[in-house]
């Protein structure tokens, strides 16, 4: 696999997925059992500090992939290696150490944050569950998390429902960062936000990658944002990765028809030259 020049050749991948298969049982209209292959032999590698964007239409298997990586679904076949250890084969105790290092951020922060909790409670929960922090330490960590994602400390008493869409997504990111994960899986994390807020959150992601060396798996159907944030892009179609490579190359010389169709469908704002120069 081709890797960015900035990464050493002998660096260990953070995440290696090999031949991942996920099969769901379903019934046809006539009632006969059928199988649905959501993931059909997916393999890829992600190096620390980089971003892999997984793009594809709805139903191509992107979100199943995210669920398998975050241990929310167990794959039918294949293996997932995180820092050289195979996740599925870990004992309960070892898996408890690995799982906090992979965090998932969803599309709609309004439904992934408990509306009855305050911002403080949302952020404290993962820290309390770890049972290794004192009260003071939890407080200190919460204020540094808020600062890191650009939220004012005044909001700790508020409920997530009182926050704007952008603030809620910042909160979701802060909660994901609470346990100092190495990998963030962003499943359409920007798609529900307004354009100007998308830009703010995208900037925050870039900033966090710079300061914390975060690794992102960015799942989206927005190719323009994928191209902006990612080092590499993997294009999925019906459970398979049909094309994968450096973001710029995929954009400029797509080899597969699926990729070309996705590119052609991106709504573009064609700006006149004078504006571009401003």
């Amino acid at each position, binding site marked *: 696999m081709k890797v960015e020049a900035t990464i050493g050749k002998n660096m260990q991948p953070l995440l290696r997925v090999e031949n991942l298969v996920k099969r769901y049982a379903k019934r046809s209209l006539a009632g006969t059992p059928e199988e649905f292959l959501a993931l059909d032999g997916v393999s890829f590698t992600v190096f620390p500090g980089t971003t892999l964007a997984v793009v594809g239409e709805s*139903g191509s298997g992107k979100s199943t992939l995210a669920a398998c990586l975050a241990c929310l679904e167990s794959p039918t076949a294949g293996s997932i290696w995180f820092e050289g250890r195979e996740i599925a084969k870990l004992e309960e105790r070892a898996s408890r150490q690995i799982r906090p290092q992979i965090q998932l951020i969803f599309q709609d922060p309004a439904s992934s944050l408990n509306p009855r909790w305050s911002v403080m409670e949302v952020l404290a929960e993962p820290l309390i569950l770890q049972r290794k922090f004192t009260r003071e330490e939890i407080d200190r960590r919460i204020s540094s998390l808020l600062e890191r994602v650009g939220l004012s400390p005044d909001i700790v008493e508020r409920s997530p429902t009182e926050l*704007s869409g952008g603030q809620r997504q910042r909160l979701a990111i802060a909660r994901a960062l609470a346990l100092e994960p190495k990998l963030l899986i962003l499943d359409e994390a920007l798609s529900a936000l307004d354009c100007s807020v998308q*830009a703010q959150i995208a900037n925050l992601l870039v900033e966090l990658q710079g300061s914390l060396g975060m690794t992102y798996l960015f799942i989206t159907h927005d190719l323009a944002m994928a191209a902006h944030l990612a080092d590499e892009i993997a294009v999925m179609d019906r459970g398979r990765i049909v094309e994968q490579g450096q*973001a*710029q190359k995929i954009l400029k010389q797509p080899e597969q028809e699926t990729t070309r169709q996705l590119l052609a469908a991106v709504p573009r704002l064609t700006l*006149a030259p004078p504006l571009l120069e401003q």
Partner: protein
Amino acid sequence: MILPQHKLEGGRKQVYHMKAILEIQDLHVSYRSSGSGLCPALTGVSFGLMPGEIMGVLGESGSGKSTLAGSLVRLLPANARITRGAVQFEGTDLLRANADELRQIRSRRISLIFQEPSTMRVGEQVRQVLAAHDSLGKGALNEQTRQVFDQVFPEEADRISHSYPHQLSGGQRQRVLIAQAIACGPSVVIADEPTASLDPTTQMEILGVFRNLREKLGLAMIFITHNPALLCGFADRVLVLYAGKVAECGSAETVLASPRHPYTKALFHSIPTVFDRPGNTRKTKLPAILGDSARSLPIRGCPFEPRCTERMDTCKEREPRRVNLSASHTVSCFKYES
């Protein structure tokens, strides 16, 4: 009512010799909230929709775009108050129409595209729309339903009309909602973020359906979205809403290619343009608009002033007037007042 030309806003009368089918005049809508009194959602919105025209309304959350859609068919939450203005449509002011008049107009003359269909068989949903508005016999009703489905599903009208919504894809469900909206042959359709949850390929497909209906049925449309790129090559005119006010309005080519209002400019700049700007290296920061629209509204002056990079002293003191930049392009900003 057909409006006399002099009643049309500023410059438009020179360009459009046609008469507006729907004329929104100085619309003010507020929400009553517990404790803090009336909270304005729309302030002085005016525009006309020409027959067969696609008007793209661009706005982010809190801009009042959904309130606008709701006001036009008088389907607003119970705590909403329309405090001023008029919406003229075929001789009736919709804001002063009674329940009977509204029932005659909704669906038949103006219809709203909803976000999700209900859970009945989709054919039945369209049938019920027809049955509620037209007194047709059973045979005629079935025939009419089939014709409506033929419009939006030319190839598989029959199979789809017998399906339940959960058996359909997002794009197909959207087409069912369009079928419901056009069933009674309206001349104006209002769509509030109809494609927001669809992937780009399906989005394009649905925009194609709308364009097709415009060609075939001469529908005029108000298409509300937060994504300016969707309006490119689709809308005829673009109206930019910010904090319940019209920031800018003009032909789609003009507004999308050379926006003048600082908000419109900043909004367009915040969209990643890796395709169009080859020199734009990835992982550079996007020029985001700082702050938060809902939370930084000033008490007086221009609503965009706190976030504006081109603000001047005047912006804090009073509100900008609407300025005609050309016959078809208006902008509300002090930079253009002379």
